[in-house]
């Protein structure tokens, strides 16, 4: 019996010839990522359990990326970044992206690939549920809690259950203004928010192979929104071109065997996909954008690990060029590299920042998570009242972006930008020819 990519990586990580879904195996971590929200708790447990004098299993394999508490003056948040800083210094962590210094980067899930920490065939654990993003690089990546992370920090390994794989085969030519975000929202709408609980979601087919890394990341990012343990796309030439530019470390690419076993297979024709939105307050309340034109919005938000990458801003700029927004439009680049691209990348010869300025958007913020998860009240872009926000982020639970009275509508950057122009949910094909 063949194995899926996920099974092959977990077999490698546990030093076995093969593994089967449902088996519990001890897996070695290639990378452990933590940030300013869960880092302090993880460090606290690590110290309590392994002792004040203990050291992390391998400083080279730990990546510490403060990214959530960048805007706030909240004293406890700032203390938490200090706790990370002190730990990075005492453990001599080479990969600490320190806020307020030239090494600062921004949102963990965009930082990890940019800085060369994502490599095919590896096992990554992160104290953030969207760690599944990195499956886009053909690796096994999953979110864990502080206690598990502290265990990994001390021992380098974790006992995990091998997930069954659920396969999504997408073939055909994606229509012009349909993005990765529309693909994954459609899938979550079909599966429901617990439709893939405990499972691996494997994305394949010609459409997926034709997608750039940024779009594959958007898709894998939201696997957790269907309850999955990990999302994964097999590494190919596109992956290698991205990864080799950023790391010289060796890695192994795995493919699923032809006779690998899946708990289910879904087939989609790309031509039938269209721009969609997820309505408040659940990522699986998915409707075609064109069917929601009566829904008025009060603000638009383009940012986060899901929708704050360079390619997401290029998409938004295509729509906003030469047009005006009619609602407050917040732009939050995920990382410093993305923030720089806003100045260096152009659409129709005009730099993105100028397009956004001329369209009347609020000046782009510092790279960070910002209002994607609400955060302290002084967080940039936070919904502090009954706003209706169309957002390129990944979650629209009650209170996710701030006030409980706010509503969040999830969309692609193209749809968010089109809606910012009209002030209501708008299919980007209304604005641009597809």
């Amino acid at each position, binding site marked *: 019996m063949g194995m899926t990519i996920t099974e092959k990586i977990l077999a490698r990580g546990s030093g076995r010839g093969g593994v089967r879904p449902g088996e519990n195996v001890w897996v070695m971590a290639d990378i452990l990522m933590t940030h300013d929200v869960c880092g302090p708790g993880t460090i606290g447990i690590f110290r309590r359990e392994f002792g004040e004098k203990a050291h992390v299993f391998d400083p080279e394999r730990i990546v510490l990326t403060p990214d959530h508490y960048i805007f706030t003056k909240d004293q406890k948040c700032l203390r938490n970044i200090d706790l990370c800083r002190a730990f990075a210094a005492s453990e001599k962590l080479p990969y600490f992206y320190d806020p307020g210094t030239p090494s600062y980067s921004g949102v963990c899930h965009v930082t990890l690939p940019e800085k060369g920490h994502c490599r095919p065939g590896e096992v990554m654990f992160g104290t953030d*549920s969207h760690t599944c993003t990195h499956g886009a690089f053909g690796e096994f990546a999953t979110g864990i*809690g*502080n*206690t598990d992370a502290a265990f990994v920090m001390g021992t380098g390994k974790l006992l995990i259950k091998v997930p069954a794989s659920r396969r999504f085969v997408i073939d055909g030519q994606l229509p012009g203004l349909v993005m990765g975000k529309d693909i994954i929202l459609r899938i979550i709408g079909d599966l429901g928010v617990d439709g893939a609980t405990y499972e691996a979601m494997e994305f394949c087919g010609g459409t997926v192979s034709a997608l750039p890394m940024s779009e594959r990341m958007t898709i894998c990012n939201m696997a957790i929104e269907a309850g999955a343990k990990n999302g994964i796309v097999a590494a190919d030439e596109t992956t290698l071109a991205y990864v080799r530019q950023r790391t010289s470390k060796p890695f192994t690419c795995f493919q699923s065997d032809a006779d690998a076993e899946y708990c289910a297979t879904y087939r989609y024709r790309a031509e039938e996909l269209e721009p969609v939105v997820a309505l408040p307050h659940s990522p699986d309340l998915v409707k075609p954008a064109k069917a929601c034109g009566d829904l008025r919005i009060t603000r638009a938000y383009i940012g986060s690990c899901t929708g704050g990458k360079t390619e997401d801003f290029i998409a938004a700029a295509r729509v906003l060029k030469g047009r005006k927004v009619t609602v407050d439009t917040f732009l939050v680049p995920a990382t410093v590299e993305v923030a720089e691209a806003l100045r260096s990348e152009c659409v129709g010869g005009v730099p993105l920042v100028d397009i956004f300025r001329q369209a009347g958007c609020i000046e782009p913020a510092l790279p960070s998570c910002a209002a994607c*998860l609400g*955060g302290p009240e002084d967080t940039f872009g936070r919904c502090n009242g009954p706003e209706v926000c169309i957002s390129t982020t990944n979650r629209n639970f009650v209170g996710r972006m701030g006030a409980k009275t706010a509503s969040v509508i999830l969309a692609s950057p193209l749809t968010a930008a089109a809606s910012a122009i009209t002030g209501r949910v708008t299919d980007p094909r209304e604005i641009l020819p597809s």
Partner: protein
Amino acid sequence: MADKIRGKVFVVGDNIDTDQIIPAQYLNLVPTIPDEYEKLGSYALCGLPDSYPRFVPAGQMKTPYAIVIAGRNFGCGSSREHAPVSLGAAGVEAVVAESYARIFFRNAIATGELYPVECATRLCEELKTGDEVELDLTARRLCVVGRRREYETQDLGEAKAVIDHGGLFEFARGTGMMARN
């Protein structure tokens, strides 16, 4: 170590996400710092819509409810361990739900904060907030005090022993997987 948990239940519905269990503005509290742990408890479930009664009464640190009853996919969303920790810190001993989101379930066991029990019956439609119940973890049943009806719950398997010990690390030491410090 608990085998029988007796107390009042607090009933919620499906897809109770971690933002409702502990909203993001309280994640600046670090669970390993004792008074911040207590504070996390006082905010447990405060992200629920205002149509729910208060889980932790105003001005108090603990909840009067020992057990939370939920529908499907309890604890979906973020990996924040603050979620099971806040419930445990508030005094919750068990959640009985139709199903759980993966990371919450795992975090509940790893921290040893509470027993995440599954029950095939949709208890969130059978019970009311304030009902007094007895949950027997060994016999695997839940009964409502003063009513005859009993509900079968699912076996926690090895997870029960981990929680009985007080979480992953205590379990590892108690069973000789890790040296005592």
